[in-house]
Each structure stands twice: as structure tokens, then as C-alpha cells.
């Protein structure tokens, strides 16, 4: 029996605030053995990141460990009693931290390799350049990156590459413990799988312990050996992953597992019995793309595509794909934020780039949007009711102040928010989930005909995704609004949509009803996407472990023409290739 790399005994962490002391973590005890991967899972605010930062002794002021011991390594060094300088030396060399926001975790003005060298020099003293370079090159190669990446600046790398650089940094001094804080939350499923493979590969090779922080039960099931479930700073359940996934004891753990929407699984929606009348007026199709192409310079973001969305019956059309597939480009074309390079985008038979001022006003009212980032959508200087009230009045929908108030309250209730608690607050006082619901409520107040939802749930906790999607689904189901749902999450697209379009490099790879496209994919690219979803099921392997296989697969996807998997009434799609 080897001795553990980390022993936490009765650790409590307090944040003194003017309103009193907040106990962020309450007497947490845990040991981690070498070579073992432990997942910390829980919602935002459950104390998982706080615990990790306490191990690094990097708690944000005024947070402090109020009691307990954190013992690192076989020599049982208590990190809480080390001097500043000793703690500095322990970081990275003994315990390394792979941060959540890999997108911004590298110094933008330094080359990647310089940021590896400064870490080596800080711990081992000055060495010659050749040694440093050979070590950084080796570290980059160990995470599957070519050595030339070291010569680049961070902005020249993709998100997946940056995350791998952070992993390379984390293992460059072969630590005893690696803490990875949601290392893949900003990545799409295909990249997520590749990065997780890399991380577990290097971790196994150096035989260190690993703490993986996350909120996605599927990812945990496929990646870690043990699970620690945290809720409100309390460790509610701890055991092997199989034990917890297959036989969860605590109700909270059960919630976490069941909140993951599964392809083919039970639906989390409860559709209305009778379909509501559509918001559509007039005979023209609601939205039409006529041979639309979009190019940015030499890059074609969207290949020629035509479709008509009749809108006689409200429908949800999902557009899925990885980052860079052209799905957000489609969204901004529909909203008129971008003009097509060729072709036309028509709303109710009118080219949206040629609307008169009054038509444009009508278009803006009738086509609403919900965006990815619920934090950036509010003006921080106004109470949130302003965000609801202003467009309502601006579009001339308000009959009186009392009418506006009623409309706001109804919209809030429709998305499950208590108007009395919410409306008078400022944006920073609300959670991400509450903000995203407010954006949905704001769109609802204007009773639009069409809603463009661009990754509406990718930044909220997994446990909240289902309920926010339900709000969005209700817009169609109860209010008769047609929706274009842009996402990288196939499982939710499977449940909410009437028709799915899978985009790859600006081309339609596969399209049809979700049961066909996602339930039984035929196109190599769709197959890869489905394959990359981590399932919260221990008996279901997470696809291939060979990344070259994925590349061969993508090469096949590149040449495979569009596969049509059946039609639905009211939506027609056609593509043409030169």
C-alpha cells in the first residue's frame, strides 16, 4: 500500500463577508492515492474550486482555511503551515493546477515556450537555452502538439491547443498531484474527448494523482476512478465511480445523474396536448435562405445553402456542429447582423438587407435572439427590469405602465422566475441561470414570430440546462414561436427539435428528423460527434482511444456529400456544391 499523495483532514474554508461568515467548505476529509483520478462534482458554488484553490493555497482574499489539515505527498507536508516561499516552490513542482479558462490562461504577449521556460527557471534555477527548449518541446510533444507551437503566441492557437499547452505546463515538472479545474468546459465534444485522453495519458505516465473538477456526470463517468460529490460545501458522497453512477445513495447525486439529457433517453419535456396556433401572419414563408453563401476573406464560412421555414406550424430547427462549423454564422445571417456574400435571406418574403426603416423595426420585434453568454447581455448599470421594459416600450407594445408591469410579471412567471424577487435587482445579483431565463422572458414579451437561440445553455450548470431548455421549448409549445436552436449539444437537440441540420466546415453533413440523424447517424462526421459524447454509463466506452482514428474519420467526413434523412412538413432544405 502506497501512501496517499493528498490527505485532507476536516478542512473547513470560510469567507468572512460583511453579512457574516460564509462556510464555503465544511469539514471535508478525503485522501487521494498516487495514480488515482478523483472527480469533484457539484454545481457552481458547491465548493469544488474553492477546495482546489485551498490545496494550492491560492484562495481569493478574504477566504481562509479555518480548520483542518491539507497534507501533500508521502512526506505529509502540511501546505497550510509552509512559508510563502516554500509554498511557491511546491506549486507546479509538487502540485500543479490546470485552470478552467484555458482560453485566457496564457500571457498574451509571451511566446508559449517562454511561459514554460519561466516556470522551469523559477523552480530549478537558470539553465541554458538548449536544455530549456528541448524540455518544452518534449512537454508539448507529450500532449500531442508539434514543437513549433512553442514558438507561437497564445492568440495563434485554438482553444483545444491552449488547453493542451496548459496540460503540458502542468506536467513539465512531474508533480505528485494535478488539479484540473473544468479543463474542457469551453471545448466542443470532439476536442473535449481528445483533450481528456491526453490528460489521462500523461497522468498515467507520470503516475501522479489527479483531481478533475467538473459538473458533467457523463464526462466524470468516462474519465475518473473515484467520485466526490459536493453540495453547498459538504462532501455528500464519495466512492468509486462505478459505485456512484450505478448505485447513487444521496438524492443530490441522483439528481446530478438524471439531469444529463441523453440521446434516446427519456425526454425531459412535457409537450402540450394540442399544438398552439402559429404566430405567423401572411402567406409568405417565415424565413427563407436563397442560395446563401458567406465568405470571410478567402475562408468560406458557409457553403451555398437554401431552405424555407414555412412557420405555419411552430417548429424547432436545430443547427449543430463544432466551433468553426458555420453555425453561428448562420445565426448572425438570420438576424441580419451579417450580410450574405451571395444569395438572400428573406423574412416573410422580404430580403432583410433591404428593409425600410419601419420594416426593419418590425423585423427586430419579430425576430428575437438568445445568446450564449448570459453575463454579457445586460447593461450592468440598470436594474434588470429595464432590460425587459425598454424593448417593450420601444416597439410600441406598451399601453400603460400597469400593462408593462403585468407583461413583465407574466413573462417572468412563464420562465419560472418570481417577478417580485427578480425585477428590482441588478444583473450582478443574479445567477447565470436566472439571467438566461430573463433573456428568454424578454424575448417572450415581444411575442416574436421567430427566435434565434445561439448556444443558450452552454454556459449554465448542467443541472439547470434542462429547465432552461424547457422554457425555450415552451415558447414553441405554448406560444407558437418557431425557433432556430444553434448548439453543439446533440443530446438536447435530439429532444427539443423537429429537424436537425449537422454542419461541418460550413457544409451540411447530415439533415433530417432528430430520431434519424442523431439516433442513428449515417454521416462519418455525425457519427464522430455522437461517439464523442461522454455517457454517464460505465458500461459504455467513450469511443476510440486512438486520435489518429478520429483524423481518418474526419478525412472521410470531408468528402462525404450531404446525407438527407427524411423530411418534415414546413421545412425544406437544399444544398448545392460547385
Amino acid at each position, binding site marked *: 500500500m502506497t501512501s496517499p499523495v493528498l490527505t485532507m483532514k476536516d478542512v473547513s474554508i470560510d469567507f468572512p463577508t460583511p453579512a457574516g461568515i460564509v462556510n464555503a467548505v465544511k469539514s471535508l476529509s478525503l485522501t487521494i492515492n498516487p495514480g488515482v483520478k478523483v472527480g469533484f462534482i457539484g454545481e457552481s458554488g458547491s465548493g469544488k474550486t474553492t477546495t482546489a484553490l485551498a490545496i494550492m493555497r491560492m484562495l481569493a482574499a478574504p477566504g481562509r482555511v479555518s480548520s483542518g489539515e491539507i497534507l501533500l505527498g508521502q512526506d505529509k507536508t502540511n501546505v497550510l503551515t509552509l512559508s510563502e516561499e516554500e509554498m*511557491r516552490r511546491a506549486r507546479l513542482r509538487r502540485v500543479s493546477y490546470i*485552470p478552467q479558462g484555458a482560453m485566457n490562461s496564457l*500571457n*498574451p504577449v509571451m511566446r508559449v515556450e517562454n511561459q514554460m521556460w519561466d516556470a522551469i527557471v523559477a523552480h530549478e534555477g537558470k539553465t541554458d537555452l538548449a536544455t530549456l527548449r528541448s524540455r518544452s518541446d518534449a512537454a508539448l510533444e507529450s500532449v500531442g502538439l508539434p514543437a513549433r507551437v512553442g514558438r507561437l503566441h497564445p492568440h495563434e492557437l485554438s482553444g483545444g491547443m491552449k488547453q493542451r499547452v496548459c496540460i503540458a505546463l502542468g506536467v513539465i515538472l512531474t508533480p505528485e498531484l494535478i488539479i484540473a479545474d473544468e479543463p474542457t468546459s469551453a471545448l466542443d465534444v470532439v476536442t473535449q474527448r481528445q483533450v481528456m485522453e491526453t490528460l489521462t495519458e500523461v497522468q498515467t505516465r507520470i503516475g501522479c494523482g489527479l483531481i478533475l473538477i467538473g459538473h458533467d456526470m457523463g464526462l466524470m463517468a468516462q474519465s475518473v476512478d473515484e467520485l466526490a460529490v459536493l453540495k453547498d460545501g459538504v462532501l455528500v458522497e464519495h466512492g468509486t465511480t462505478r459505485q456512484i453512477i450505478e448505485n447513487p445513495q444521496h438524492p443530490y447525486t441522483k439528481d446530478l445523474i438524471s439531469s444529463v439529457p441523453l440521446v434516446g433517453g427519456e425526454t425531459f419535456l412535457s409537450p402540450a396536448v394540442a399544438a398552439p396556433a402559429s404566430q405567423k401572419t401572411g402567406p409568405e414563408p417565415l424565413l427563407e435562405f436563397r442560395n446563401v453563401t458567406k465568405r470571410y476573406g478567402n475562408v468560406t464560412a458557409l457553403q451555398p445553402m437554401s431552405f424555407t421555414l414555412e412557420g405555419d406550424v411552430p417548429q424547432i430547427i436545430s443547427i449543430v456542429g463544432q466551433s468553426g462549423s458555420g453555425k453561428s454564422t448562420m445565426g448572425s445571417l438570420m438576424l441580419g447582423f451579417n450580410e450574405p456574400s451571395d444569395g438572400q435571406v428573406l423574412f416573410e418574403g422580404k430580403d432583410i438587407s433591404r428593409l425600410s426603416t419601419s420594416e426593419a423595426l418590425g423585423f427586430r420585434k419579430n425576430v428575437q435572439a438568445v445568446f450564449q453568454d448570459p453575463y454579457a447581455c445586460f447593461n450592468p448599470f440598470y436594474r434588470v427590469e429595464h432590460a425587459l421594459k425598454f424593448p417593450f416600450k420601444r416597439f410600441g407594445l406598451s399601453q400603460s405602465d400597469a400593462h408593462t408591469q403585468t407583461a413583465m410579471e407574466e413573462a417572468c412567471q412563464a420562465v419560472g422566475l418570481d417577478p417580485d424577487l427578480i425585477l428590482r435587482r441588478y444583473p450582478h445579483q443574479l445567477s447565470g441561470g436566472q439571467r438566461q431565463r430573463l433573456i428568454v422572458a424578454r424575448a417572450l414579451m415581444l411575442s416574436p414570430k421567430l427566435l434565434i437561440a445561439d448556444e443558450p445553455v452552454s454556459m449554465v450548470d448542467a443541472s439547470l440546462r434542462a429547465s432552461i431548455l424547457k422554457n425555450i421549448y415552451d415558447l414553441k409549445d405554448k406560444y407558437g414561436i418557431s425557433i432556430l436552436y444553434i448548439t453543439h449539444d446533440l443530446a438536447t437537440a435530439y429532444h427539443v427539435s423537429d429537424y436537425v441540420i449537422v454542419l461541418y466546415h460550413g457544409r451540411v453533413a447530415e439533415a433530417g428528423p432528430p430520431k434519424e440523424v442523431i439516433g442513428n447517424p449515417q454521416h462519418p462526421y455525425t457519427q464522430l460527434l455522437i461517439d464523442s459524447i461522454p455517457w454517464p454509463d460505465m458500461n459504455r466506452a467513450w469511443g476510440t482511444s486512438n486520435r489518429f482514428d478520429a483524423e481518418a474519420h474526419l478525412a472521410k467526413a470531408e468528402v462525404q456529400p450531404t446525407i438527407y434523412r427524411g423530411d418534415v412538413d414546413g421545412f425544406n432544405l437544399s444544398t448545392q456544391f460547385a
Partner: protein
Amino acid sequence: MGRIPRSYLINRVITLLLTVWIAATLIWIIPRLSPVDPAEIALGRMAAGAGSVANADEILAQLRASMGIDQPLLIQYLKYLGGALTFDFGLSTASFPTPVSQLIASALPWTLGLMILSLVITFVIGNLLGALMVWERSPNLVKVAIPAAMVFTSIPPILSGLLLMWVFSAQLQWFPLTGAYGLTVEPGWTWSFVQSVLHHGFLPAVSIVIVTFGFWALGMRGLMITVQGEDYVKLAEAKGLRPRYILYRYMIRNAILPQITAFALKIGLLVAGQVLVERIFAYNGMGKLLYDAILDQDFPVIQGISYVIILMTAVSVFLVDLIYPFIDPRIRHEGDT
């Protein structure tokens, strides 16, 4: 990165010339909107000197001819533009008939010396102090002392200048009261002259520094707070880097970038000098020249100085545009691939 693409360079040079041309035109038009006739002012000055002037109309016409303001506006404008290209702004109306370029040439070096020196000192001190205000590991003394020192920023430079003069010149007699150099030294590249210039420039420079460092410190403080919250600073700490290294290479290095743009804009303005500071210390710089020219309605001099200010600003912005991609790798010269 690397070399600057030619198309970008041509583009920037054209922008530079256009800016200067438009600005030069504006500073030509604006004084002509004034109802004051500079020839009458010159005549008035002569009359005040001699008691009375005979043949006033004739002299007035002569003055107008020699100032070139009897010609049609278009001709005046074209002549002005031609002059601007060769830094010929005609003759000063107040110190008639000294050429404007000569007045500027004799004042400019004094101001540039004083101002560039104090701007550089201010930039370094201000940004450093601003950074230390934010840095977690700054000694407490620094965190208390800097905001206290900021009080000086709100003191008008005339007052702080007078205070410095009273303490260091009048009471302690460490520094001379006024002037740019001593009366006993010959201007020239001799050690005693340089020594005298430095000796005389010290107090004005200090009074500018203590008044203006707050601008940089407060700006830097705001930028540092943003940078401090960046993920790369957090990761730098997690990497176990030395705190001082993080401060310089991760925090200040990134926070300073917008300040460099501000620095370029300040360079142009500094030609006009700290008018009041130069005035108090009787320092023969551009500020004093501009001040006198405004009092005397000396259009050619005002025009000449404004032109130099615009040229300096445009050129320093132009240089920053060229340099920026080298200090911030995220920015590229347009047309660079």
C-alpha cells in the same frame, strides 16, 4: 510581426499627411474668423511707442502688404500651405519682423528638453506607483503613501511651482529662482552650460512631475485591476513563479499597453508646454511663446505653434501604429499575413 508590409506603411503615411493637411487648414481658418485686424494692432503698438503716427492709412496698408493679408484668401491659403511644408510661417506680428520659424526654433529645444524629460519621468513613476497600488505584495507603506501623494495631483501647477520655488529657491537656495540657464554662462556645448541648464530645469521638471504623475498612476491602477483578475495571472501564480517576476512580466507588461498609446498622444500636447509652469519659472519655452502670442494676437506664431503640435501628435501616433505590433503580438499590421 517581423517587417512592416509596404502597403500598410503607404496607407499610414497617407493618413498622416491627410491629418496634417486638414488640421493645418483648420488652424489657418480659425484665426481668420476673428474680427481683429493684426495690422491695426501693430499700428496701435507703434502709436503707443511713438505717441502718435502720421499717415496711418499708408502705414496700415504697408503693414498689411508685408504681413500678406492684403491678398485674396485663396492666395493667402496656398502661400500658407507652401510655407507650412517648409516650416515658413511668415513674420511674427508682435516681434516684427522676426520670422516665426526662428522664434519657434529658439523656444522648441527648451520645451522639448524639459517636457520630454519630465514626461518620461512621470510616465515611469506614475505607472510604477499605479501598479504598486494594486499589487497585493506592496508594502503597506506604499499603499498608504501613494494615495496621499495623489493629493498633489489636484494642486494646480502654479501653486506647487510657487511652493517649490519658495522652499528650494528662496529658503534653501538650492536652485535658481527663474530662467533656463544662468546669466553668467555662454550658451553652447560646454559642461558649465549643461550644468546650468540642468540646475535651472530641475524645479520646473519636478513641479510638472508631481502634478501629472497622478494621471498615469490612476490610469495604470484601473488597468492593473483588470489584469490582476486575468486567468493568466492566476496561472502564473499556480506555476510558482516569483511574485516580482509576475508583477513585471505578466501584470505590468500587459497593463502598460494602453498607456503607451496615451503616451504618444501626450507627446504632441507637450510641445505647447506647461504654459503656466514656464511662465512662473520664466522659462523660455514654447509655453511662454504661445502665451505671449495669444496676448498679442500674433496669428503667425499661434499658427506655427499649432502646426508643430499637430505635426508632433500625428507623427507620434504614426510611430506608435508602427511599433504596436512589436509590443503586442495580437495586433498585426493590416495586410500582414
